């Protein structure tokens, strides 16, 4: 039963082929269209026969290209800048979430000072909160309450070094967006890592402690290396949310901290939908998740099943 592959009827393979076309088709379509001129996309005649062009990508990336493409007379799309913002925000929030989540998960498992139930309950509770619900309070707090007056020492220092005007607020900064993402992802990460830490044999830690290692050393030298698969799964999920999120980022970012999803939504603006360029930006945004999917699908599945089956 477990050895060798079973032979299946042809209809079965046809079904599988259809499923594959359905799940990959739209992505492929976007990929192909991102290499077409708008005229080619709109005129109904061409299907697969067209002259591929990288013009759309040139337009999208015009602010980071070392040369000036002929067809771009004004580089209005600051995609490069947004891409860097997205990277900073997604990477920093992933690292922070993992570090903080790891420590918390470890404490919860090893020191038993709070019931596991509390954590799983709060994980669920937080998973339940839609980002839209956070919109109003986060908007209000980040703009008005979480501020340092510009006359205070720190505020003045920040204004002097980084420029800008008014009180120093969390809104409009990378840190402001990162803070929300870390908070949104923490419970899930703690939950996943907890289940992995549970499997680390206690005896290993005891041995290290006998050798004179303090709790921090035990954690970093013994536990951490053993829960790598869990970390990978948690990292992908956190990154994905931070990379893809639109709503909160759009409420909190200013002109310098825009992320790619905001840029894409902004460019679907009503005056003219430039399909080619939009597809190119969409494709660029989709690349990191696609890479993860292709190279770490096992971790993703682990994360998904751990989150659902045990949650």
């Amino acid at each position, binding site marked *: 039963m477990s050895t060798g592959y079973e032979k299946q009827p042809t209809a079965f393979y046809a079904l599988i082929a259809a499923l594959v076309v359905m799940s990959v088709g739209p992505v492929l379509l976007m990929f192909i269209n991102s290499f077409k001129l708008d005229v080619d996309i709109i005129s109904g005649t061409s299907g697969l026969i067209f002259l591929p062009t990288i013009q759309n990508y040139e337009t999208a990336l015009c602010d980071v290209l070392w040369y000036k493409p002929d067809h771009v007379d004004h580089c209005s799309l600051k995609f490069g800048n947004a891409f860097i913002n997205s990277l900073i925000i997604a990477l920093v929030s992933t690292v922070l979430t993992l570090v903080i989540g790891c420590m918390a998960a470890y404490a919860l498992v090893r020191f038993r000072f709070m019931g596991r139930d509390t954590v799983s309950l709060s994980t669920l509770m937080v998973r339940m909160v839609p980002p839209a619900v956070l919109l109003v309070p986060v908007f209000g707090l980040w703009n008005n309450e979480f501020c340092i007056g*510009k006359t205070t020492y720190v505020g003045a220092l920040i204004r002097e070094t980084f420029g800008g005007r008014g*009180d120093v607020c969390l809104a409009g900064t990378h840190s402001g967006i990162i803070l929300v993402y870390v908070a949104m992802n923490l419970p899930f990460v703690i939950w996943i890592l907890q289940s992995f830490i549970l499997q680390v044999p206690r005896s290993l830690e005891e041995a290290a402690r006998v050798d004179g290692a303090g709790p921090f050393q035990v954690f970093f030298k013994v536990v951490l290396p053993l829960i790598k698969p869990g970390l990978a799964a948690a990292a992908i999920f956190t990154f994905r949310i931070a990379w893809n999120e639109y709503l909160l980022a759009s409420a909190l970012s200013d002109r310098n901290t825009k992320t790619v999803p905001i840029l894409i939504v902004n460019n679907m*603006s*009503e005056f003219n939908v430039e399909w080619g360029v939009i597809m190119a930006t969409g494709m660029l945004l989709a690349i990191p998740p696609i890479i993860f999917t292709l190279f770490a699908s096992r971790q993703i599945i682990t994360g998904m099943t751990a989150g659902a089956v045990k949650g």
Partner: protein
Amino acid sequence: MSLSLKSATAGLALAACLAGPSLANPYAEYEGTTLIVNFPAHPHYDAVMKILPEFTAETGIEVEVDQLPYLKMRERQTLELGQDEGEYDLIAYVVFSKADYVFADQLENLAKYFMNPKLSDPGYDAGDLIDGYVYNIGFAGGDKGYLQGATGSLFGIPYGSETSVLGYRKDIFDKHGLKVPETYDELLEIACQIPELEPGMGGLSSRAASGHHAAHAFLLHLNPMGGAIFDDQWNPVVNNEAGVKAAEALKTIVDCGPEGATNFGFGEALGSFLNGDTAMFLDTTVVAGQIDDPSKSQVVGKVGWALHPMGTERASQTGGFGIGIPANAENKEAAFLLMQWLTSRKGDKLVAMAGGNPSRFSTHADEEVNAKYPHMATFGEALKHADPDWRPIIPVWGKINADLGTTLSKVLTEDLDIQEALDGVAERTKGVMTEAGYYTWN
């Protein structure tokens, strides 16, 4: 040292003045300033982006532009203008934001800048600015609170303003011997004839998507039909006979329109006209540049322009954008200089040549501009009928507009009874107005 430098500069300036006004440099003091401006993503402002480098070259004032879709732009401004110190030095605002900003004291009154001899250009020729636009977009505090009048004053200058015109496909009209519609009856008749004459083609492409789009399309027809949202006592009259007729017109247009018309935003409506899927387009003048751009349009050279058809009267829309200086801006004076430069005769012509919407009568009549854009003359004619009181610009308008737009969308997609729908709008509007205190003096 600095004093002598200053006097040297003054001397230079004086010398320059004597040598002739063209050499004077009122900009010297602001050289090296970077202005942060907030503009919408809009064809006119795309054209503005092209001429800004010229401003920098001429004046030494740098301009950094934050371009956003216009609803987004409004959200951003709400936030920025509310701060004690804002980031933006100059903003373009949607006409209906005027009420919010002026009411909350967030826009600078321009009087003090035009009074300042160092800033104000004597050759500005304010009388040449299209008065309908100025009253609609720039003035506040006069009639009804939001218009010109004895108590009104200026808070912004129209820039990227627009009126409505009818674009039609000359080739299609010639082919079937159709007459360019002069009145609404003719318009509706032709709109519904076209799908029969040209299978697969829609009559008139109009925006109709839920919310702002549907409301806008409705307002386009409301004034020519002799209707209005409010009477003079702020009582909602949108559900009167004219209102019903306007909504019926909208429904007819959408029914005889291209496929999927019920969900068209402005972009889709224009897109279908550019793509040759419809024979007529009744909306803003902004689109003319794109219709003549072969990389975007399949109908280059096939489009003729005519005045907005009349119902009981001629009334084309006034709308679009104006530019103003936020009260919390850092570089207000330099911002005024930019504003003045952009809307001067020279700047207005430059932006018109780059494909923008001029705000001056003289630019509409300019030979060079007309040679490049033959439709300018028709647009200039249309402006004479532009109605500054095209829609109420009051702080609660956003809410009424949203309700109107959603309800009309239901009329279009769910066959809600028109009279009933508009009665509902009127009733809810009355509630909103009561709450906002509009009937305090009645």
